[in-house]
């Protein structure tokens, strides 16, 4: 995509709240945007380093819970006589804390991924997410368990006392998600286009060869995992302060599957893939609502995923871009799309 097309796209996205008056549609776009951010972060691991992380929702949930707890404040009874009291913090600080904590867990998983690979890595990541879910469910003193954390404050903008805008309504939240989305895209695009991203791609393509020319396997994987987890944590934070309630169900495996479907359908290892996949699977449920029950939708998703793997293994974006090239015979690109 050239600069003009990109500019046009971004302009279009910024204009949506101006003409789309139905708040419900805006809500769908906000949630889809949050999932797109999460899918983009998963794509960094799955698409660029080739590590199938199926516990990705853990980072999302950890970011969300951390952000919620920091903004609400909490106290922990450490011993009978001492209770640790953490006062409520502004939402922005909470949001950053969520990103940092999620990034830390990404670092842990990255370290592990060096030792356990392939099928083992997949199972470790699933287990990690399940352990985190069980902790969220059972550590009631901290997380309220299944009763959920309620009344989470929304984002605010401005200087306290002077002028403040609290993000109660859809429109500011839409822009917040859009800006975060663009930032995440830029971070990932710059990273994968750099020498560090080349190292990640090299690991995916041929790990022994990459190591033999001096690519540090551990460091590249850890870097990818940290950035990926931090972005997923940001998505979790956005979700929490938008929906304003979070419970352990946020860690359900089905959400990881949703992200995987988005990435695989759109095209893993492409920058646009998670966006295309995210839009499809963010909006499709609403389109199917009238005709199919949620279970039926999931059956359709499952079948769709199988069909995509069989018939469109690289996903929509590479298929469309190669069709485009053939059709219009554009000058050959330097392989940057699927680099």
């Amino acid at each position, binding site marked *: 995509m050239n600069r003009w097309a990109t500019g046009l796209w971004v302009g279009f996205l910024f204009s949506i709240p101006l003409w789309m008056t139905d708040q419900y549609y805006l809500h769908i776009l906000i949630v889809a945007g949050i999932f797109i951010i999460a899918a983009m972060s998963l794509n960094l691991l799955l698409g660029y380093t080739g590590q199938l992380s199926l516990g990705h929702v853990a980072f999302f949930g950890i970011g969300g819970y951390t952000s919620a707890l920091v903004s609400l404040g909490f106290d922990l009874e450490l011993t009978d006589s001492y209770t640790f009291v953490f006062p409520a913090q502004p939402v922005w600080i909470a949001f950053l804390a969520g990103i940092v904590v999620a990034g830390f867990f990404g670092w842990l998983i990255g370290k592990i991924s060096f030792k356990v690979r392939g099928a083992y890595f997949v199972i470790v990541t699933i287990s990690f997410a399940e352990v985190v879910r069980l902790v969220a469910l059972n550590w009631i003193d901290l997380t309220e368990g299944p009763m959920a954390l309620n009344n989470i404050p929304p984002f605010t903008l401005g200087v306290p006392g002077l002028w403040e805008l609290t993000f109660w309504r859809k429109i500011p939240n839409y822009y917040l998600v859009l800006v975060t989305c663009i930032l995440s895209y830029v971070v990932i695009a710059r990273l994968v286009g750099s020498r560090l991203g080349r190292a990640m791609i090299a690991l995916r393509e041929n790990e022994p060869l*990459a*190591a033999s020319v001096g690519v540090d396997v551990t460091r590249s994987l850890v870097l990818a995992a940290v950035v990926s987890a931090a972005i997923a944590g940001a998505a979790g934070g956005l979700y929490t302060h938008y929906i304003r309630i979070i419970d352990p169900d946020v860690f359900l495996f089905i959400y990881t599957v949703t992200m995987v479907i988005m990435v695989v359908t759109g095209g893993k290892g492409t920058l646009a893939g998670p966006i295309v996949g995210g839009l499809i699977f963010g909006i499709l449920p609403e389109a199917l609502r009238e005709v199919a029950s949620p279970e039926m939708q999931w059956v359709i998703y499952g079948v769709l995923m199988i069909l995509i793997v069989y018939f469109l293994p690289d996903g929509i974006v590479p298929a469309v871009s190669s069709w485009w090239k053939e059709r219009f015979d554009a000058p050959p690109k*330097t392989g940057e799309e699927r680099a």
Partner: protein
Amino acid sequence: MSAAPRSREVVLDIDRLTIGFGGLVALANVSFDVYEGEIASLIGPNGAGKTTAFNAITGFLSVSGDSIRYRGKRLNGLRPNQIADLGVVRTFQKTSVFAANTVTDNIMIGLHRHAGARLWEILLARPRVRDEESRLRAQAGEILEMMGLSAHAEELGGALPYGEQRLLEVAVALAAKPTLLLLDEPVSGMNPSETARFMAMLGRIRAGGITILLVEHDMRMVMGVSDRVIVLNQGAIIAEGAPEEIQRNPEVIRAYLGHGADKRRASKREAGRA
């Protein structure tokens, strides 16, 4: 070819290297040296332990102890990328390129060690990053030029014809700027004219100050380019010397004939198995 350059400095020092796989001894007390600036060849029948030695030297096989030194530094226990940082870079027996990347990008990955942009600089798109990228791209162009691959620069690595892929492998290794280059059967599968071109290429690489250790089955090539030949059989060194000496050595002849091998078939089998 010149006689063994004994006067020169030892760069790679293998001292009593022993490797076993669950009761099976792959290498037993193997000692040999590689000298600065030479082309040394490691030959031997299938299963003699040549590739095992390569894997041990380059860290793909972890060996404890202190049996492998490069320019005085111990390589035992280091990971492949750390060994590459010391200047020891290898190629693989089975064709090994980054198939989904363009030829230029293959070289750019090879240049990884020679770029220093930090994460924050990359995320902030500092001018330094762009300068470094164009510097790398220019260097990649030079390497492709030297290897005669410029015409394929924008093709995918995996889409190249076989002979070109083998050249690309060497180009990727060269991009890492080794001081010792280990080549594992680089001409297997090449036709005679490609092999001849490759031999000329080796001379140029050596002229650039790179020491070369070669594993190869093509005896004509080995005898044609090597300063020194080291013969492994069943995990032990049975002969070492200038190519002419090796060709006359009765024990070497017996080792090869004993395996009933015509060498070509052997080389094919080993290449296929890798």
